[in-house]
């Protein structure tokens, strides 16, 4: 196992499977009598969130606390980051306080990488979303959820077809998911209007479609991405209603899905825009379960990154 988790490309397939398997064991343990484990007692984990987040931050916090680590929350608002302190100075401060791991969310792509490779601190760095680059723990929890519901008797996701729908251009969730899901053997279809696809998408290991209706009936899972309303002014879309009509998951599209196919969303949702309330609350929706799985997956990540020595392979 590696020391940092910066992007999915840091993981081999067996690393990824070992995270998923560990998470599965931990999920069963937290349903049972052993909710709190002493494994990371005496370790300090810093949540460094320079960008807003609810789910990811509290999910990492819950995971760290269930492993008995001490958690320090550090958000941009109300800290010296908002006064313009550099990442380097922040990192050195955290090092001086004895942080064993830093979980970083930042609006600059590559921030986690800069922190890890800067030699400013000795602890592990976990990327909790950097700009439009990657969000590896989200992809791992998505893979965990898909495996639990859809896997055809395999340990990986081979034979499955998964659609990722929406703002691919700005989505770190999409980037991490394409890398991870294809590594685990799934086929990925990206569905978006041409304006919301990045340049060079043809070189990604995924198919691209502009027609949601032709894709929805043949996938095992659909991951709906949030339309970032603040970007609507930048002329990516004619208007929200048109987007919703062509790329939203409404009741009619929901009814054309395969029998056991599931609906996912990394949150926060814009109900009525990319996903209708009926779809979000339907029996196919595993959106709330994703949050629960997130805690188990992040416990597995913290355990595998922090519990042992770094010299030996698992």
């Amino acid at each position, binding site marked *: *196992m590696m020391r940092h988790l910066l992007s999915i490309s840091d993981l081999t397939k067996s690393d990824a499977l*070992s995270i998923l*398997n*560990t998470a599965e*064991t*931990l999920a*069963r*343990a937290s349903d*049972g*009598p*052993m909710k*709190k*484990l*002493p*494994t990371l007692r005496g370790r300090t984990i810093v949540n460094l969130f320079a960008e807003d987040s609810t789910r990811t931050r509290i999910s990492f916090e819950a995971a760290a606390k269930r*492993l008995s680590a001490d958690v320090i929350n550090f958000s941009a608002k109300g800290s010296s980051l908002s006064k313009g302190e550099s990442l380097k100075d922040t990192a050195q401060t955290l090092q001086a306080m004895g942080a064993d791991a830093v979980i970083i969310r930042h609006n600059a792509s590559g921030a986690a990488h800069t922190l890890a490779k800067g030699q400013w601190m000795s602890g592990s760095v976990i990327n909790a979303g950097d700009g439009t680059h990657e969000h590896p723990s989200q992809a791992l929890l998505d893979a965990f959820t898909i495996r639990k519901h859809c896997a055809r008797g395999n340990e990986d996701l081979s034979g499955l077809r998964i659609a990722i729908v929406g703002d691919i251009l700005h989505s770190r969730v999409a980037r991490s998911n394409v890398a991870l899901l294809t590594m685990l053997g799934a086929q990925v279809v990206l569905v978006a209007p041409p304006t919301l696809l990045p340049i060079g998408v043809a070189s990604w290991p995924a198919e691209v479609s502009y027609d949601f209706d032709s894709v929805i009936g043949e996938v095992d899972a659909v991951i709906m991405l949030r339309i970032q309303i603040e970007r609507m002014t930048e002329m990516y879309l004619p208007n929200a209603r048109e987007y919703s009509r062509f790329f939203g998951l409404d009741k009619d599209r929901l009814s054309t899905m395969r029998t056991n196919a599931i609906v996912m969303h990394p949150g926060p949702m814009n109900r009525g825009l990319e996903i209708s309330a009926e779809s979000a609350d339907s029996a196919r929706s595993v959106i709330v379960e994703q949050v629960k799985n997130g805690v188990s997956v992040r416990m597995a990540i913290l*355990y*595998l990154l922090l*519990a*042992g*020595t770094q*010299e*030996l*392979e*698992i």
Partner: protein
Amino acid sequence: MSVALPAPDISRAITRIAHEILERNLGSETVTLLGIPTRGAHLALRIADAIELIAGKPVECGTLDITMHRDDLRLRAPRALAPTRIPPSGIENRNVVLIDDVLFSGRTIRAALDALGEVGRPRTVQLAVLVDRGHRQLPIKADYVGKNLPTSPQQIIKVHLSETDGVDEVLLEEASK
């Protein structure tokens, strides 16, 4: 390398331990067997079968993974976790018998006692092992022992069970030079 315990001795030891557990706990009604993965879990199932054969009714049996409670986690690479399965009636006020393959430093059992404390409060905790090789580092003693094997700390004991290794045997290896 020598065979310290061949297959027939292993199965005799299991039967004897089953008898001793029944004798000491006046039957199997209050007993919960908890095997420590991997091989302790298999031994627990075998002891459970033996008890059922003798007493004529099944005994509660589960597994207890102690990886997250070890005190040597930071000294080695992270280990894969194994499932913990506590029987539905729980361990509250039960006579819990922990089962492991080899008793050596005693640290695994210390971790198991910690893990057990998270689950509940048994009436008693007893310990059954297939092999006791000595060299304890903690004040821990087994209640049921398949075989006492005097060893030097450098020697290596390998327990093979048919469930995991295809064959039943306990091997004693000299330390690798």
